[in-house]
């Protein structure tokens, strides 16, 4: 089946799949002062963002809570109209051309479900196939493929409200991909998920991109998601873009460090390790924190070095917080 459409031609000619030009979105908020009086305040949720994403890219969109990520997502998916500026998604103006755009994109809202709560999972897929007007055979084939890759086969007859969070998110991602969109937008998809579910989802997204060349736009608080899935990062702070580049350059800019926290069998003096720097001790040296740069070494190597010197009873790995990254960036940039 060889289909030539204008959109694919656009891929070849280098049209961005997502183009934001000086995008603004403000809200007027009425605040109560005292008992009766009100004051109106204008909140600039998105304050002049310019960026463009090419087809096939995988972009992470990070920022502190309230920085403007969700507002940007709403504007590029057709839910919210910009106050000024221009946005084109897949070549469409999102709000006026909402329905044409909806055929080309898939959206996964981490906090809101697009599945039918009280119906079995398989019904959600059927209904979405019908909403997207996919021929039955095609919908069935595509659904089967997704179900297989996301290990949903046993869950198909379970009502969605009985699924665990991890299972439900896999269902949401599958649902967003039934119609083979060119762009997949995920808004905090891994929030609240356990490590195994996160890894499964990431693995699936990597494979999906590799096979279909789907463009990925991902907002997240989890740096692990970014590391695994994205080759480019956009950082937003208070409505403005403070960084747009590759992950290595972000790491360099911010000197992202991870921290290995080891519990030792008894109080000990500060550990001296080549690969990492000692940044703190608790409990008289029974718990020690070692910071290292993932560019230079791995957690496993640091652990190996520590284990060579002393027994390790327990350990945790801390990731750099998005807030810290943003704060550093904003200070630097």
């Amino acid at each position: 089946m060889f289909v030539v459409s204008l959109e694919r031609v656009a891929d070849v000619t280098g049209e961005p799949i997502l183009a934001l030009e000086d995008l603004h979105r403000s809200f007027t908020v009425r605040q109560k002062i005292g008992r009766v009086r009100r004051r109106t305040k204008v909140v600039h949720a998105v304050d002049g963002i310019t960026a463009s994403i090419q087809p096939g890219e995988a972009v992470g969109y990070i920022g502190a809570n309230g920085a403007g990520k969700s507002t940007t997502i709403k504007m590029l998916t057709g839910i919210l109209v910009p106050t000024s500026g221009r946005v084109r998604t897949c070549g469409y103006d999102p709000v006026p051309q909402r329905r044409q755009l909806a055929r080309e994109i898939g959206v996964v809202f981490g906090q809101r479900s697009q599945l039918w709560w009280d119906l079995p999972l398989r019904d959600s897929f059927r209904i979405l196939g019908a909403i997207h007007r996919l021929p039955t055979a095609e919908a069935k084939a595509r659904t089967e493929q997704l179900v297989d890759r996301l290990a949903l086969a046993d869950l198909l007859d379970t009502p969605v409200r009985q699924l665990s969070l991890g299972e439900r998110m896999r269902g949401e991602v599958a649902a967003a991909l039934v119609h083979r969109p060119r762009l997949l937008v995920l808004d905090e998809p891994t929030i609240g998920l356990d490590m195994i579910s996160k890894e499964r989802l990431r693995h699936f997204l990597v494979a999906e991109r590799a096979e279909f060349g789907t463009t990925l736009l991902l907002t997240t608080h989890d740096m692990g998601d970014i590391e695994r899935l994205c080759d480019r990062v956009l950082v937003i702070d208070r409505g403005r873009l403070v960084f747009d580049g590759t992950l290595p350059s972000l790491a360099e800019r911010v000197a992202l460090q991870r921290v290995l926290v080891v519990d030792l069998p008894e109080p000990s003096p500060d550990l001296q390790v080549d690969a990492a720097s000692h940044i703190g001790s608790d409990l008289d040296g029974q718990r020690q924190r070692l910071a290292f740069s993932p560019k230079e070494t791995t957690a496993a190597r640091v652990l190996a070095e520590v284990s060579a010197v002393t027994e390790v009873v327990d350990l945790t790995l801390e990731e750099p917080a998005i807030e810290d990254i943003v704060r550093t960036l904003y200070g630097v940039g």
Partner: protein
Amino acid sequence: MAELSAIEAYRILVGSRVRSQLAYRTSFWLNVVTSICVGMVEFLEIYAIFSNVPVFGGLDLRQAALVFALASAGFALAEVVFGQLDTMPTYLRLGRLEVMLVRPMPLMLQLITSDFQLRRLGQLAVSLVIIIAVLPGLHLDYTPATVYLLVITPLTGAAIYAAFFAAAGGLQFFLIDGAEFTSSFVYGGSYAGQLPGSVLIMPVRVLFTFVFPATMTAYVPALLIMGLPGPKFLPAWLGWFAPLFAAWAWLLAWMAWRTGVRRFTGAGG
């Protein structure tokens, strides 16, 4: 490859809903019984009035029953298709409308197909039964005009009540907490429409004829059917214009809906 036909898509959309309702056998029958009771209970009020007086609003029991049943049929029909809009406040609160905006289907269509309550058919059945029960005793003159009116009235009635549902839906984007406001014309309209319009005191009569044309859903066309004159502001001949009133109601509804959606997407500023 051709895309799925609209009919087939609709069938799948509504099919799962229907199946899931049939699966829960006891609650399904309970719902049917309830909906039949609703129809009967509403009629009970008229019946109770007539057990005290022989003539009410210029109509006797049978005539009032016809008005009641025509209005009730129209409302039931409207509810079957558009009744799901009643759940809009909940959907708004849960953020489901944003999820709907990301789908390639008109928002209104998604809302009205988001569920399909089989039990609403129960109310429709009750109204039809009442119509069939009273028609013989009315000794109507079955001219083409009468037959036309008998058939068209529940349909225009449904169109008018459906417009009320749609207008209420549009207003939900503004009302949030104040959702109950829409009951005043949706269920108030249904109530007023089932009564002989002649009993409504003047301000109410004007409200429910020229703003929310509930009296046009059954009473005035029924006057035509039964060959009766009408009270002040509601002459029988207005009944021929019921479709026009339906168009008016839909104009208001469309405006309310559009304004509401624009406000929701921030296009209204």
